[in-house]
């Protein structure tokens, strides 16, 4: 096959897969939350309620798209697009199967960290341009949370990088042939999950949008498809961090050969996504200062210690 056509197919395949997953997550999350809370969730529209996704999308497209007169129009409009764009950029480096990936950067992890940092802008700009006190408070909280948790997210991955000797996600997966990195890097794994949850400001760390305190935080003033973009961005973010957790710690596409590599990757990603939904069902939201002090006082020393020990072990075993 023509390599350009093949590349295009992969690019659009990944794009389509990511967006489908993000849309499907709306339904999956509601059903799973229902399951864990002894109720059903949406089960009326279509088989098992799966067409609820379509119903939700139709609804959100036809909602009034309201820009408040006191908002900064341009930035208000651009902000929701940033979050989706940055997360989609992040998908470029995820290797789905041995020969199915968009790009194989030798700085893959750094690229992911960079794109997720740009994602903060959507939150800050959205909250600021809304010209609303609650939005601004949410944006401030989000900025503090995301900037501090980015530090440990990067540091928690350094153990994996040291064991592989490369930033490229492709070689990281291949280095897990013998043993998944979740075993030697269990500390890094836990810190990465926590930091990634905070990074996507996902429950239980949804402090920037905390409904009970800040109405909806930075997207209080948004409606219609602009609000939908924030939503899609959040679900894309969950998919991305699940895919990265699988790639970095759970062996990516590796697995017994009765299933193709792609299926193993999807299966593991789905399991991680369901685990994240379970966290939402189980855990309450911590206080804002608790989250930050927990990050700086517990997670930062722990991740530094993890790097130290990993380095010492690598040095000792050669």
């Amino acid at each position, binding site marked *: 096959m023509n390599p350009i056509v093949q590349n295009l197919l992969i690019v659009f395949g990944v794009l389509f897969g990511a967006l489908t997953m993000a849309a499907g997550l709306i339904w999956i999350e509601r059903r799973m939350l*229902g*399951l*864990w*809370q*002894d*109720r*059903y969730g949406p089960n009326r529209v279509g088989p098992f309620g799966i067409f609820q996704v379509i119903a939700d999308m139709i609804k959100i497209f036809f909602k009034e798209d309201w820009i408040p007169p006191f908002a900064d129009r341009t930035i208000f409009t651009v902000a929701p697009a940033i979050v989706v764009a940055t997360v989609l950029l992040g998908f470029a480096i995820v290797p789905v199967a041995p020969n199915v990936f968009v790009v194989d950067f030798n700085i893959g992890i750094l690229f992911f960290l960079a794109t997720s940092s740009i994602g903060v802008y959507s939150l800050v700009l959205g909250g600021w341009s809304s010209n609303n006190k609650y939005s601004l408070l949410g944006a401030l909280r989000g900025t503090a949370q995301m900037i501090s948790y980015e530090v440990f997210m990067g540091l928690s991955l350094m153990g994996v990088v040291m064991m592989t000797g490369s930033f490229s996600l492709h070689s990281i997966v291949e280095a897990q042939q013998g043993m998944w990195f979740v075993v030697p890097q269990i500390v890094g794994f836990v810190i990465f999950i926590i930091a990634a949850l905070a990074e996507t400001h996902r429950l239980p760390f949804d402090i920037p949008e905390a409904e009970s305190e800040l109405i909806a935080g930075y997207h209080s003033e948004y409606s219609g498809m602009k609000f939908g973009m924030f939503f899609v961005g959040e679900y894309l973010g969950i998919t991305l961090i699940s895919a990265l957790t699988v790639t970095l710690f759970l062996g990516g596409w590796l697995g017994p050969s009765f299933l193709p590599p792609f299926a193993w990757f999807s299966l593991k990603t789905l399991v991680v996504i369901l685990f994240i939904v*379970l*966290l939402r*069902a*189980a*855990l309450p939201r911590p206080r804002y200062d608790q989250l930050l002090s927990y990050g700086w006082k517990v997670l930062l020393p722990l991740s530094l210690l993890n790097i130290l020990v990993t380095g010492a072990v690598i040095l000792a075993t050669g």
Partner: protein
Amino acid sequence: MLSIIRSIYLVFLRMFRPRFTVQYPEEKIKLPARWRGRIVLTRDPDGGERCVGCYLCAVACPVDCIALQATEDEHGRRYPEFFRINFSRCIFCGLCEEACPTYAIQLTPDFEMSEYDRQNMVYEKEELLINGEGKYKGYNFYNVSGLKTGEKDKGEADNENPPIDVRDLMP
């Protein structure tokens, strides 16, 4: 830390529990016999209307949703010419049932009375009157109260019991 893991585990275990939700239109919950739902007008065992048009229900109704007009038939018995309940006002408190001296008006275990048109919430006598005795089987008001007509005094007809002495405490 351990408590967090424990709560995650416990929430995960909820997966294997039965769900509380009743899938309503397909499954229906069993309503208790004394459920206060749709109001009906009942008949006595002989098939005659129990309602004597005394207006006590309309007076007792706290939201004034009952309207009726009493009239008399050729034997001098009172019955409602029309009987109208506006269910968009009714709060199903059951005071009309308690006020009724003849057990005519009764609340039933039925709540499925939604309508698309608000006018349809107003029930006329044809919709309210049922061909049954409701909760009080075998009760005939005229048998125990008696009725004085032009031809006879209270309790003197063939199938009539003498009227209850209301000053006596014995049943």
